[in-house]
């Protein structure tokens, strides 16, 4: 909410929009099929004013369940679980900041940086437990390349022109991603731009999955009917061609 407020305030308070920041991406569509092995998208831009560039890519929000394995009599079982509601399924950050002095508050408010992302638990869990599970969640997501930060990956061609290669691993979720580009100078937000990227799942597998979840009643009937028909067919074919 705070982030939105700041951005709205920013837009309202900049009547003469000098457009000090222009950027674009090579494509805003990624199609996941069965052979999908990750995708790279080139972002390029130009800044009209001097300042630092921060680029954040946020994936669609998902509910995450973190389960801790525990041992009882030598047997490993699922122990405590914490559900994190509406958390970014993907988060990637690039910035030209060498240190965050004086802009900590702004970065926190804009949820920039993995330590500034807000996580919400659904159940009543203590702050300690939430922290423990949240650390593990971020750690696993980083391990799976879904969360990342690359401070030095913004390439400057000259003082104004820059480019960044955005990397999407093969395990990304489908949904709408947003690329946010910020121009920050002396603790002030000078300019902001947001570009959407649409990640779609294509092919028969995605259709079956959708069908199973959206029309589970019909899917159940189809699964049963299909098995009945194949069973009958197998019997018929064997009798017909192979005999008893």
């Amino acid at each position: 909410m705070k982030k939105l407020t700041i951005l709205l305030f920013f837009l309202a308070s900049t009547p003469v929009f000098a457009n000090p920041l222009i950027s674009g991406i090579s494509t805003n569509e990624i199609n996941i099929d069965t052979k999908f092995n990750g995708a790279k998208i080139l972002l390029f831009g130009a800044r009209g004013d001097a300042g630092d560039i921060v680029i954040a890519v946020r994936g669609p929000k998902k509910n995450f369940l973190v389960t801790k394995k525990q041992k009882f009599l030598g047997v490993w079982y699922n122990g405590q679980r914490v559900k994190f509601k509406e958390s970014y399924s993907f988060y990637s950050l690039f910035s030209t900041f060498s240190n965050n002095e004086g802009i900590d508050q702004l970065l926190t408010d804009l949820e920039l940086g993995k330590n500034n992302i807000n996580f919400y638990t659904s159940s009543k869990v203590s702050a300690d437990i939430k922290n423990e599970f949240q650390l593990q969640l971020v750690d696993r997501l980083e391990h799976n390349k879904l969360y990342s930060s690359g401070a030095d990956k913004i390439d400057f061609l000259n003082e104004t022109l820059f480019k960044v290669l955005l990397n999407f691993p093969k395990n990304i979720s489908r949904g709408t991603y947003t690329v946010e580009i910020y121009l920050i100078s002396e603790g002030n937000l000078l300019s902001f731009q947001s570009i959407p990227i649409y990640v779609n799942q294509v092919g028969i597998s995605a259709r079956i999955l959708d069908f199973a979840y959206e029309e589970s009643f019909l899917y159940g009937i189809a699964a049963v009917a299909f098995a009945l028909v194949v069973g009958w067919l197998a019997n018929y074919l064997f009798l017909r061609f192979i005999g008893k």
Partner: protein
Amino acid sequence: MFQIYLPIAEIPVNILLVLLLGLGAGFLAGMFGIGGGFLATPFLMFIGIPPAIAVSTSTNQIIAASVSGLLVQFRKKNVDIKMGLFLVLGGFFGSTFGVSIFRILQSSGHIDIVIALVYVIFLGTISVTMLIDSVRTLMEKKYGVTWDKKAEHGEGGFLKRLERLPWQVYFPKSEITVSILIPIILSAGIGILVALMGIGGGFLMIPAMIYILRMPSSVVVGTSLFQIVFIASNATFLQAVTSNNVDIVLAFLMIISSAVGAQIGTRAGYKVDADSMRSFLALLLLGVCVKMLFILFTEPSHLYIIEVLKR
């Protein structure tokens, strides 16, 4: 190259491996008349299919296998339909209840360990009993040693008590009179196992029909298959609706390969020494049981597991 992506399990598997697995499970099921689901479900787990999906997809495969067998039995007029309907009634409640337990365990996160534990208990008991039995038979054949058949104490009294239950009904096909409570309760219990383990339950139902219901052995297999078709259909449907656990692509591969395997197994069954094969099956089941135990006791590679919830 032979990878296929399973839409519900959301993992790629080697198509040849799955076909081989179905072929093997079908072969053994065809040869021994039991045990298709008992082997197929753990095998699926061993190749990395999540236990909940392995179980539910197995029930889907069992429908096809049972229909195929049932049609053969129908042709031979070996089905006691009246008895079958009472079994279906009980099995309907049992499997519905079983799917509810499954659902509760899945949302609390304990389904995987419960499936593994139930399998360890059943596989352990069955394989050891079978092994002792078949070793005895082999020894008897080879050395002429005989064991005293244990006198079955108490069992007579138990069956006597069953005769006093209300709602006695005559079943003309089987030529027996029993209380309808017995088949209903019996199949309700088995229905729960069908839902929890992804098995047909024939290995329990058939002995129960012979020793408790005293049905003639000619109609036992057909009637058992009759109720399995309905129970497995109910379980599959409910699993698909309540937990989205049925992977239709995986089921398809298993159905095709196990149907072929069962036909080969049935024919091979006439030619091999049944007793040696029984000890082989017993060892195989024991091996699966041990492997399951390993899964329970092996330290996971990560102490925290992350899941993305679909809803």
